[in-house]
């Protein structure tokens, strides 16, 4: 089970989607815009994530909202999400520190 999850997350862009969804649900058009995906690429990534059980789709009218299914993230998959999140948070803080020191 972990292998299936790991295979799906062996793709940088899908890891980015998962990391982004770790911060909250997004609609499929939002994800497409955020990452600049073509419709085809967007559908492929989302379908693979959904098949692996990593994300769940909820229908709001005609819009599909995607949310992370945290219990599917385990082992390395979870670690990779944490690593990206950790670096992202650190590098954001670095920006604040540099701005404060420039004053």
């Amino acid at each position, binding site marked *: 089970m*972990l292998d299936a999850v*790991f295979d799906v997350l*062996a793709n*940088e862009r899908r*890891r980015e989607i998962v990391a982004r969804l*770790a*911060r909250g649900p997004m609609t499929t058009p939002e994800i497409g815009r955020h990452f600049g995906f073509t419709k085809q690429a967007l559908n492929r990534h989302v379908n693979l994530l959904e098949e692996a059980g990593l994300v769940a789709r909820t229908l709001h009218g005609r819009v599909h909202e995607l949310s*992370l299914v*945290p*219990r599917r*993230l*385990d*082992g*390395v998959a*979870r*670690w*990779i*999400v*944490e*690593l*990206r*999140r*950790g*670096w*992202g*948070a*650190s*590098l954001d*803080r*670095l*920006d*604040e*520190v*540099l*701005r404060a*020191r*420039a004053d």
Partner: protein
Amino acid sequence: MPAPTETLTLERIYEAAPQRVFEAWTQVDVLGLWFGCAPDTFWKVHLWEPRAGGRIHVSLDFDGHPFEVRGQFLIVDAPKRLRYRWSGDEVVEVTFEAHGSGTKLRVAHTFPAGAEARTILTAGWSASIEQLGRV
């Protein structure tokens, strides 16, 4: 055959000049202001010797589980490039490129992929997923 690896890459643009950004990575008092994996996570930098061969020793604490990182600086080329071994076979490469009057920072964190990585990596990064979901 070399062990398969994965690389996590991040880029950021900062308004500060490369020298300033480089210093934020190499001066421990500044590093301590931003370096860490999450605001709720405790990191303690014991050794951070930014010179080729210099030692790295950082204590992390996740949900009460202590974890020690012992690495080494491999390349220190001020104010352009840092390369250091983090924990185990993990290597972090940081480049600082002038971008107008600011800096384009690139971080590439390479780690072993596949089965053997799991035990190494999960040991250090095991914040609960419930917590991740709340962020």
